[in-house]
C-alpha cells in the first residue's frame, strides 16, 4: 500500500466511526441475529451438535455480509458527489481510492467477527480446533472478506445512486440465510436445498465449521478458497473497469 492508500484508508475509517448506522449494521445486527437464533430458535433445530457450535461459522459470514452495504453506499457517494474529480485532478490513483475502501471494509468485518466470536464464547461456543486449524479459519475468513469487499466496491461503482448501491448488496446479505449457515442444507425443501448446496457461502461456512470442530474437510476448504479467488477476481476486474469508465 502506498502513502495515498493509507490517507484514503484513514478517511474511510473516520467515515465508519462517524456513521452510527454503519456500526450498528456491521456489528450490532449480526450479534442480535445470533442471539435470536441461538436463544429463540436454536432448540427447535436438530443439527446433531450443540446449536451454538453449529451456528457460529454461519454467523461469522453473516457479520461479513452485513458490513457490505455501507461500503457500496460510500463508494458510490465518492463517485456521485464529485469528490472523485478532486482526487483525480490531484493524481490520486484509482488504486488508492479503491484500496482504501476495501481495507476499511475488511477491518470493519474483522472487528465485527471478533465481536461475534466473543459473544459466541459467552453463549457456550466450544470449538475443538487446533492452533493450525485456527490459522486456517483466519485465512479463510480474511479471504472471504477480501473477495466480498472487492465485489462490493464494484457494486458501489456500478450503481447509479448511493441508495441503489446499498440495495445492490442486499442479495449478498441474504445469501447466508439461504446457505447452511442456520440449518443444514439437507433439511431444506427442494430447490432451496440445491441452491444452498451450490452457492458460495455454503462451502465457506462448511470449511470453517469443519476446521472449528476439529474435523477439517479438504473438499470444502478447496471449494471455499476457489470461490473466494473467483469472487475476488471478478470483483477486482469489474471495479477496475467501472472505475475507468466512470471517473
Amino acid at each position, binding site marked *: 500500500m502506498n*502513502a*495515498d492508500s493509507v*490517507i484514503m484508508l484513514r*478517511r474511510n475509517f*473516520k*467515515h465508519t466511526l*462517524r*456513521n452510527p448506522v454503519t456500526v450498528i449494521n456491521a456489528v450490532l445486527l449480526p450479534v442480535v441475529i445470533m442471539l435470536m437464533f441461538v436463544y429463540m430458535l436454536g432448540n427447535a433445530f436438530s443439527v446433531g451438535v450443540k446449536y451454538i457450535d453449529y451456528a457460529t461459522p454461519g454467523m461469522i459470514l453473516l457479520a461479513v455480509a452485513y458490513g457490505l452495504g455501507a461500503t457500496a453506499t460510500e463508494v458510490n457517494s465518492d463517485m456521485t*458527489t*464529485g*469528490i472523485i*474529480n*478532486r*482526487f*483525480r*485532478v*490531484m*493524481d*490520486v490513483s484509482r488504486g488508492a481510492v479503491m484500496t482504501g475502501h476495501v481495507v476499511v471494509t475488511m477491518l470493519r468485518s474483522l472487528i465485527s467477527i471478533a465481536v461475534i466470536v466473543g459473544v459466541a464464547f459467552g453463549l457456550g461456543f466450544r470449538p475443538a480446533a487446533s492452533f493450525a486449524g485456527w490459522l486456517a479459519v483466519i485465512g479463510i475468513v480474511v479471504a472471504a472478506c477480501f473477495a466480498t469487499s472487492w465485489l462490493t466496491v464494484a457494486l458501489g461503482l456500478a450503481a447509479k445512486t448511493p441508495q441503489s448501491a446499498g440495495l445492490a448488496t442486499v442479495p449478498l446479505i441474504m445469501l447466508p440465510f439461504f446457505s447452511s449457515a442456520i440449518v443444514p442444507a439437507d433439511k431444506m425443501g427442494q430447490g432451496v436445498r440445491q441452491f444452498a448446496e451450490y452457492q458460495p457461502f455454503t462451502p465457506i461456512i462448511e470449511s470453517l465449521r469443519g476446521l472449528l470442530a476439529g474435523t477439517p474437510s479438504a473438499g470444502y476448504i478447496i471449494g471455499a478458497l476457489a470461490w473466494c479467488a473467483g469472487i475476488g477476481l471478478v470483483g477486482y476486474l469489474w471495479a477496475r473497469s467501472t472505475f475507468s469508465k466512470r471517473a
Partner: protein
Amino acid sequence: MSNSAIAASGLRKAYGNKTVLDGIDLDVRAGTVFALLGPNGAGKTTAVNVLTTLLKADDGTARVAGHDIATGTKAVRAAIGVTGQFAAVDELLTGQENLQLIADLKHLGAREGKRVVTELLERFDLAESAGKPASTYSGGMRRKLDLAMTLVGSPRIIFLDEPTTGLDPRSRRTMWDIVRGLVADGVTVFLTTQYLDEADQLADQVAVLDQGRIVAQGTPDELKRQVPGSHVLLRFASAGDLDAAAQVLDGSTRNDEDLTLRVPSDGGLKSLRALLARLDEYSIDPEDFSVHTPDLDDVFLALTGHPNTGHPNTGHAHTGHAHTGHAHTEVNAR
C-alpha cells in the same frame, strides 16, 4: 505566447452524435480572470473538464501552464486547482479534516500542512466552524471550503465551474472578493458562469459560449460595443405626443404600437438634462422615461439571436439584488 496560462485550439468533444464542444479556441493570459459565459447546456462544464484533464478531447489541442493536456497530463494536474460545480467536500469530515486530507494528498509534510490548513481556515473565515462536519455547513460555507481545498498547495491556475450558482447574494459577493484576491496574488482564474453580471464584474476577458461554439470573445467593454448603443426610452400617453416628440428629437426611432420613442444617448447626466429640457421647451410630457446602457444580457441576445435562457426561474430574482453591473435606471416622469 509565453505568457499564456491556458491556450486551446480547435477543441472538440462529442457524446455519441451530440456535439458538446464544436471547435473551441481560447487564450488566457497569466494573472488574469477569464470568464466562459453561457447558458446551461452550452458546454461550459465539458470545456472545464477537458482543460483540467478530466475528459479527453476528441480533437484539438490545449496547453495549460505550458504543458499539453494530452501528453503532459501529470504536469498539468500539478499546476492547477479545480473547483467543480458541486461542492466536492467530504461531508463526514470536519472543515479542518477536509483541508488536512488535501494537504496530506499533496504531500505537504506535517508542519507545512498544518500551517496551510490554519491559514486557509482563517482566510476563508471558517476557523470557527473548523471542527464541525461539513454536512452542517451552509451552501456558502461549503463553497468556501471547497475553494479553500482547491487552494491547498498554491496552484497558479484555478478553474472555477459556476462558483456562485445557487449562492445567496451575500455569499456571491464574498466569492467575488475571494476571486479578486486570488488575481491580486498573481493567480490565473478560469471561471464559467451563466451570470452575465458576474463576468462583467470579474473578468478581464470574456468568451461567450453557445451550443458548443464561442460566438464572441473580448473584454466586457469590447463585447458591449458590439451591440446597439445606449439609449433613452420614452413612452407617451397619446400618438399626438409621440408625433410631437419624434419631430423635435433627432435620430429617434418610434414604435407606434407601444407609443414609445427610442433616443440614442450616452446616458450621461448632461445629455439627459438637455433631452428633458428640449421636451420641456415644446411642452411634451412623456409618461415614462428610462435609460438603457447595454449589459452582457444585450450582448448575448445580439450575438446568439436568442436570450440567455440559462435559468428562467432565478434570472429575475437574481437581477433584483445583485445585478450591480446592470445600468437600467427607471425614472417615472410623473
